[in-house]
């Protein structure tokens, strides 16, 4: 569905379904990896990220919400 190539601080992401390229920074690759296991609420997402040790102290639920909104705008995640 996606192809990711780490460049430096940023990761280049090719989204096959839209044909679009995105340059993203953590925690976005972690969020996408966590959601690849299936849909989740915000709370479930936090748990998944913590289980994988992928959540930084600065990634508060409020900040994760902001990232999710941005990802929704570009179509990488969507609400059920």
């Amino acid at each position: 569905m996606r192809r990711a190539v780490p460049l430096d601080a940023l990761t280049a992401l090719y989204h096959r379904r839209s044909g679009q390229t995105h340059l993203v920074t953590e925690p976005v690759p972690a969020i996408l990896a966590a959601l690849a296991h299936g849909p989740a609420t915000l709370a479930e997402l936090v748990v998944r990220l913590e289980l994988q040790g992928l959540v930084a102290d600065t990634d508060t639920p409020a900040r994760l919400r902001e990232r999710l909104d941005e990802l929704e705008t570009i179509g990488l995640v969507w609400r059920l």
Partner: protein
Amino acid sequence: MRQHCTLKIGPRIFRIGSDWAAPVRQLRALYADYPMPDDLIAHFTVRLEAARWWRHFLRPSVHINGDHMLPGALPLPLAQGLLAAEMGMNLQLALGERHFLLLHAASAERNGKVLILTGESGSGKSTLAALLGEHGWRLLGDEFVLIDPTTGHAWPFPRPVSLKNASIAVLDAIVPPARFGPLLTGTPKGDIRHLVPNAAALSGMDSPAAPALILFPRFGVPRDVRTMGISEVFIRLTQASTNYVALGEAGFGALTRLVTATPARAIDYPDTMTGLALVEELWSALA
């Protein structure tokens, strides 16, 4: 169309048709030393057309059309028909190419490795590449470099270098007059004169090579060299490509491979000779 010719430039063949004889005659003269196309089937068609039949004769102006069109492109006066033909070829490649990743860049090869110079108009990349081509490098092209997604190699596209304004004199001092096209004055970019690449560049136009260094030159500012993050290089090259998006995943693969495998520097230089020395210096440091 009554007047036409077929030209091969690197791996691409162009069929150019014209409502007038002059542009085709000038093209034939400019491309006289190019290898004959090895195939009758052109990749791209360029048409130089009069808007109305009577405009063949009265205030003739050349509309640049072809397989792929850019709406709203302005016509040129017939006296600049040669420039129109060159612009037409650029346009077809820029809009229509779907195999090679196109980068708006000049490039040259030495010891089997390719230097890519990319920057906006006025960065001096054409002049630098033309000079390198006269100083032991093989000129690959001054306008487009073609990256093959299957190999990662850079293909030559050695069209005549379009020298502008002051750089015409710089090359005129060291290149025999026979390799120059006519001086075109009063074009949208000022004076333009085409320089035919030398024999090494033309005979090597079917030989690609691996990129080894990417430079982003800036002309007319104090000498400086800056390293660049890979993602910055990536972003700037997507902006320098006319078909990155259209190639889809193949373009993504080609570009990420290029930027992760090839060192890049931004270079500032006050004048052409300093620029040339800086390029040679950075190139030597690679080995």
